């Protein structure tokens, strides 16, 4: 196994593109190192991104959104007051990953690239309309977060490509987001169901919304029908019920050691309603 610590994205991409065996990018390492120790994967090349200048920074973009470097940890996000104020749902999703110790290392980009359908940070990002900056041998492109996962443990990144940063759009006025997951315990667990909701209000009604669901399909899903169910409403009980129906209809869960398909389908509807109400409350709070 060869360990590399490149000092630029270009160098990292060059190393990755030139590698012929099993390659892993290392930022927090909270997935890669665990998989390595468990004997699930033994990379030939391990490319550490933490030494690349800028990859550990959170910056305001010219349009009023955010750029979160690929090696920024959950703990760093949680301590960034302005980011937390704009996108509490995105931050709370990331902050649910692992323990306090894991939070010191784990990253949004890593959580996305691990490809888990249950990744806690991904529904919040998808609901927020986040995009990622992907750099590879063919150059740099921007891709919607929901376009990255291809299935459990798989992404649509091409060989040699890496995620440089996550971009969040400007929050704007009267917007709010939330992420909720279901686990049988209170922490240190993996989502049995996850739901991210982001919405904006105008005149007391939902003007725009995005709803994403996790752990109920091979990838995190953006559910436009769920957004439609609440757009134009005051998020009354009927809207919440329609939202629940829409996410249940979109979910295609499996039964496994973490929960049954029937349970997941039930609970994804419950959590969607609860997350939407939290996002709604936050949007109203933001309007003050």
């Amino acid at each position, binding site marked *: 196994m060869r360990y590399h610590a490149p000092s630029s994205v270009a160098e990292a991409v060059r190393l990755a593109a030139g590698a012929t065996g099993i390659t892993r990018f290392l930022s927090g390492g909270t997935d890669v190192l665990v998989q390595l120790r*468990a*004997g699930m994967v033994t990379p030939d090349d391990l490319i550490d991104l933490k030494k690349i200048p800028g990859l550990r920074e959170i910056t305001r973009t010219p349009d009023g959104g955010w750029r979160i470097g690929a090696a920024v940890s959950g703990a760093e996000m949680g301590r960034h007051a302005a980011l937390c104020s704009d996108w509490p749902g995105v931050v709370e999703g990331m902050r649910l990953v692992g323990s306090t110790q894991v939070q010191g290392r784990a990253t949004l980009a890593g959580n996305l690239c691990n490809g888990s359908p249950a990744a806690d940070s991904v529904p919040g990002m998808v609901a927020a309309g986040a995009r990622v900056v992907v750099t590879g041998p063919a150059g740099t492109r921007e891709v919607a977060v929901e376009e990255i996962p291809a299935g459990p443990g798989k992404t649509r990144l091409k060989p040699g490509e890496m995620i440089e940063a996550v971009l969040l759009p400007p929050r704007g006025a009267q917007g709010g987001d939330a992420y909720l997951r*279901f686990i*049988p*315990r*209170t*922490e*240190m*667990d*993996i989502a*049995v169901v996850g739901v991210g909701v982001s919405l904006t209000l105008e005149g007391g009604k939902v003007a725009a919304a995005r709803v994403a669901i996790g752990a109920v399909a091979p990838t995190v899903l953006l559910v436009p029908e769920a957004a439609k169910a609440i757009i134009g409403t005051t998020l009354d009980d009927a809207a919440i019920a329609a939202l629940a129906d829409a996410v249940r209809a979109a979910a295609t869960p499996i039964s*496994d*050691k*973490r*929960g*049954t398909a*029937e*349970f997941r389908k*039930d*609970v994804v509807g*419950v959590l969607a309603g609860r997350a939407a109400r939290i996002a709604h409350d936050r949007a109203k709070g933001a309007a003050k």
Partner: protein
Amino acid sequence: MAKDETQGFRLIGTRPDRPDGLDKVTGRARYGADISAPGMLHAAVVRSPHAHARIVKIDASKALALPGVKAVITRADLPTGLTGEDWNLQENTLAGEKALYDGHAVAAVAATTKLIAQDAAKLVEVTYEVLPHVTDVDAAMAAGAPVIRAGTADHSVPEGMHPNVVKYIDFGHGDVEAGFAAADLVRAQSYKTEATHQGYIEPHACMAQMGSDDRGEMWVCTQGHWYIRRMSAAVLGVDASKLRVTPSEIGGGFGGKTTIFMEPLALALSKKAGGRPVKLVMSRSEVLRATGPTASASMDVKLGMKKDGTLTAAKVMFRMQGGPYIGSSPVGEALSCALACYDVPNVMHEGYEVLANRPKAAAYRAPGSPMAAFAVESLLDEMCRELGLDPLKVRLKNAAREGTKSSYGPTYNRIGLVESLEATMAHKNLLAPLGPNQGRGVASGFWFNHGGETSVSLAIGEDGTVTVSVGTPDIGGSRASIALMTGECLGIPYEKVRVNVVETGALGVNEPTHGSRATFASGLAAVEAARQAMAEMCRRAAAEWDIDPEAVEWRDGAAHPAGPNAGKFPPMSIAEIGAKMGGSGGPISGHHEVTAGGFGASFGVHVVDVEVDPETGRTTVLRYLVVQDAGRAIHPAYVEGQYQGGAAQGIGWALNEEYVYGADGRLQNTVFLDYRIPVASDLPMIDTVIVEVPNPGHPYGVRGVGETGITPPLPALANAIHAATGARLRSLPMSPPKVLAAIKAKAGG
């Protein structure tokens, strides 16, 4: 009779820091994996990926060719001809003809580094012929189930049963049919519990060395090093006295470290590698796949009750699997505990032990009792509700007390169930108001406790300080408790007594720290040893004073003339006697060895308040109360710790812990991420009340306290969830999907 901390004792009932505390919080304490030796090799174990498979061939040539590999062993390296439990242990240590569960060891490798050993283990080529498997206890008894090992059943099993049914037990007294006929309400229900793991934080670990002369030494994390010695010697076919076993500090055991799993592998690898020491440390996955969980159970209960709550008859039928070997399931204990809290005139118990393709079960905290309590205490709760009776009052009405003929045979001496129920009924938690979707559940529990083979030595130092050597590894604070009792007895400060857990060469045979016996039995023996030393110190003082030894008495850490007639001498302190002992007759020590009888049963009562999310089935424990008879709490903080720990493990068993097997018979949840023991934030601070009804069989009244606490949580949670939702769960765990389904079924029906 709640705990009174002012009963005239100087040390007993106080809460000093534990002597091992500083080492443990600074990382200095040495656990199983913390010891290394020059030239040491590292071992890795090759494990079956199949639940049931014939081992056709093992080819280790590629592994042996890997640079750094020093030895590979298979079953062919172990002696043949073992019988009974020795054969079971050997078979479990390394599979013979068949691998009998997912994770069963089939070979082991020793190499110069752990990574090389792990790589070499992957190069050992095992050819399997996969066989049909069965992991569920009821399925394993059914016609057509795969036969795990024909001819295992003993003579107790009735004709015509499946060969996987290997043992039948029945006992009882009275006339149950007459008892049911006399009842106003008779109800029968069936229950199931899943296997759970002890979940100790420290994985199994040892370092062993053995030469071609079969003399060996081992450093090992265990609850009982004489057991490790005897079992390892039997598996390897050597004399027990050739092995010297030293216990490390122990990061939890809960019964699971009273037996061997891989220790003989380290010895055999060392011998094959020319006597180089070998370290073997299990991963968490290995611990969950291949070390002792408890049994899974399928149970039928029938109870008869009068309108006033009086129990007239009880009948239980339990079926338990404890893996692929006879004698591993605690079905006998489960039956004996099932009705132990009650004075029922007519009782009948029947049980079957069943083989299944699961790991060989080990003891787990009150083995068998939690499952039995789940079944009996759940049905009792249902019947109380049906008759509109207070479940605590019904428990009090039927409570076993001194003189009651127990359900399992013996007549109880002084026990503290009534006092525990009364203390529960007086507790403020019963007055806490409950909101929507909240419910309260109560349940009682029992464990016999144990005495067992015990050998303790005590020596007076040259400065009058005292060293106590015990053979029971300290899991729950027993060194502190034994130091308190020794200091109390000798009239010296707690800090002047050091208690060491010593190796197998230093004492006679000791049973493990099991059966909640360490503070009871090693404590009792330490007190007897102290009394011997005290008598000798009185003799030394008498000789110096030239008076009759009977004219000397011991108090406040010194010899005193017994009265004015004995003469006028200033007291002679333990320090003075110690300083002079070389010239006054030589070293002063005490020693006591005994198979301790006189242990006293411990009863407990738990009350839990829960809130259940009606839309997700998720249970939150709001409030939890443990009330239990300790006999006497030597160190109350560690008694409370045992109560809380038992409750925490029981809550995990009740709500989320389970062995999840795939259709292929492989264990699906082999790490703590998916084997869901409670995390700290899942639980409220668990309230405790120590009841003290002293055990007449111990010099200070000690009963064991370690095990009873895991028994009531299973039914208490089921009863609370029923109170909160109206849904009755009769199968554990009561995980959110099951609770939600039960709530919906109730709403639909």
